[in-house]
């Protein structure tokens, strides 16, 4: 069942088109990663989903409702650099957030204590936020986003600004939360996405480059590849470029002395390359056959 359907969203700022006609669905209970390099339009997309930015065109429909309907009660949102009132205590902020989202005082108090304990801030609940560390602020940010039991949780780069320890903590929390609600989070790190998500929306320059379930993307992009590296030598370079035009090479990518070939016939490719390397006396440094990963796909999309 679809929780949210976005159709043909578009947003520009001045002359710059930030999001250029993207469509996607978010399934109830799924965890979706909005993946892409900086400037891909991830934050703008999340802000449109959160209702903070009006799309120039396109529709967002929540839970089968009318497009443009108000679903803010069912939404939890954590911006990239959450700005919490430093003069409040953690507990006060969570209660304030809960009440604004429509919980009554009693529910707010119960839920507030629950989420603060969950994110490990129970002992610090009465301290002023201005004295919190970056990781604690991020965890409090998660607590305020969760306190009203949102049906959709939108997180903008939740771990990007954290040190490895804080990152670990927040990732563990997300893994935990994943079972209760639908999560959409943006990141520029593929590894984070692979760690907890089951769906990926890969964005670049305001468009969706690829989207789908992680497993199917993985198998779809698990093509046989051969990676090669030679010593710096003009003959070697020429030979590599020649190889790229052979019939068994589907696609090639050069990065300095490193070359990656997507091939359709590994046996033939291996045989040809190795025998030619010997006969032409090419100083091979590295030869590897394997299959391409999502990392390759990501690099391809980002590099393009």
């Amino acid at each position, binding site marked *: 069942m679809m929780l949210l359907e976005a159709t043909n969203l578009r947003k520009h700022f001045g002359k710059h088109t930030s999001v250029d006609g993207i469509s996607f669905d978010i399934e109830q209970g799924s965890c979706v990663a909005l993946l892409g390099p900086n400037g891909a339009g991830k934050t703008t997309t999340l802000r449109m989903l959160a209702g*903070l930015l009006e799309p120039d065109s396109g529709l967002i429909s929540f839970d089968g409702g009318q497009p443009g309907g108000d679903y803010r009660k069912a939404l939890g*949102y954590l911006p990239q650099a959450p700005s919490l*009132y430093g003069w409040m205590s953690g507990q006060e902020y969570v209660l304030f957030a809960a009440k*604004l989202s429509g919980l009554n005082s009693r529910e707010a108090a119960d839920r507030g204590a629950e989420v603060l304990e969950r994110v490990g801030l129970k002992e610090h609940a009465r301290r002023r936020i201005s004295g919190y560390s970056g990781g604690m602020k991020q965890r409090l940010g998660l607590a305020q986003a969760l306190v009203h039991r949102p049906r959709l949780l939108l997180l903008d780069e939740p771990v990007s600004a954290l040190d490895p320890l804080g990152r670990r903590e927040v990732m563990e929390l997300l893994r935990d939360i994943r079972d209760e609600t639908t999560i959409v989070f943006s990141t520029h790190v593929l590894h984070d996405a692979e760690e907890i998500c089951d769906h990926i929306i890969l964005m670049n320059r305001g468009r969706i480059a690829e989207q789908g379930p992680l497993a199917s993307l993985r198998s779809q992009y698990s093509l046989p590849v051969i990676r090669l590296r030679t010593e710096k030598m003009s003959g070697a370079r020429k030979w590599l470029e020649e190889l790229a035009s052979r019939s068994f090479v589907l696609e090639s990518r050069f990065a300095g002395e490193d070359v990656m070939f997507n091939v359709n016939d590994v046996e033939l490719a291996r045989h040809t390359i190795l025998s030619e390397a010997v006969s032409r006396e090419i100083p091979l440094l590295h030869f590897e056959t394997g299959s391409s990963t999502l990392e390759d796909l990501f690099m391809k999309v980002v590099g393009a």
Partner: protein
Amino acid sequence: MRSVWIFYQKEMLEAVRSYRLIWIPVVFILLGIMQPLTAYYMPEILGAAGNVPPGMLENYEVPSAAVVMVQALGQYSTIGMLVLALITMNSISGERYSGSAEMVLVRPLTPLAMVVAKWAALLTVLVLALGLGASGAAYYVMELIGPLSWGGISSAAGLYGLWLMCAVSLTLLFSAFLRATAAAFLGLLSAAAFSLAHSLLPAWFDWTPAALPGLSAAMLLEDGGALRLGPLLSAPLFIISCIAGAALLLRRKQLPG
């Protein structure tokens, strides 16, 4: 409605934590009581400074109680208004630029509710500060100079407060779409321009909120005076349009940049 109340409570808690609820009334009290004190002790002050030709102080007459009270309220149009602009300027703009507005507006809190709550919190601070300040001034005027009617004082202070609230509302409007300092500057400038226009062309601006300080003075000097309806109606309308404008601007641009 409930969200206005929740946000108002947050604003008041902030006013307490930042000591705003204390220092602004203190400034208003000091400003208020300074006027009767200096008016009454003027000969002593000048005498202590020395170099005053003999005989000059003999003709000094303490102004009437009503005049001193009017002067005391007049203090609030300069330093008082500056202080109010300073606390108002950051009100919306600070939250927009820091990103905390984003985190509350994503919840079911409308921009209008947020603006109304902020306005109400500013009104609370103003009422408290002006109430205490005017009472302090009135107390010293009555102790040192002469009697005044509390009815006249409160209506004069009320009219003055309405004028100050117009300036606060205007600054709040600017704060909804400008940076804090620009908001304060424009707010103060417009208030000054308004007053100037009124003093230059009283016939044209007689119905505007800028006539309120004059009306407030008349309450004390003419004992009741003629209460004109124009400024009394235009001021609330002006305030309401400032609030509505701020809410509209905030709705259109919830995020800076």
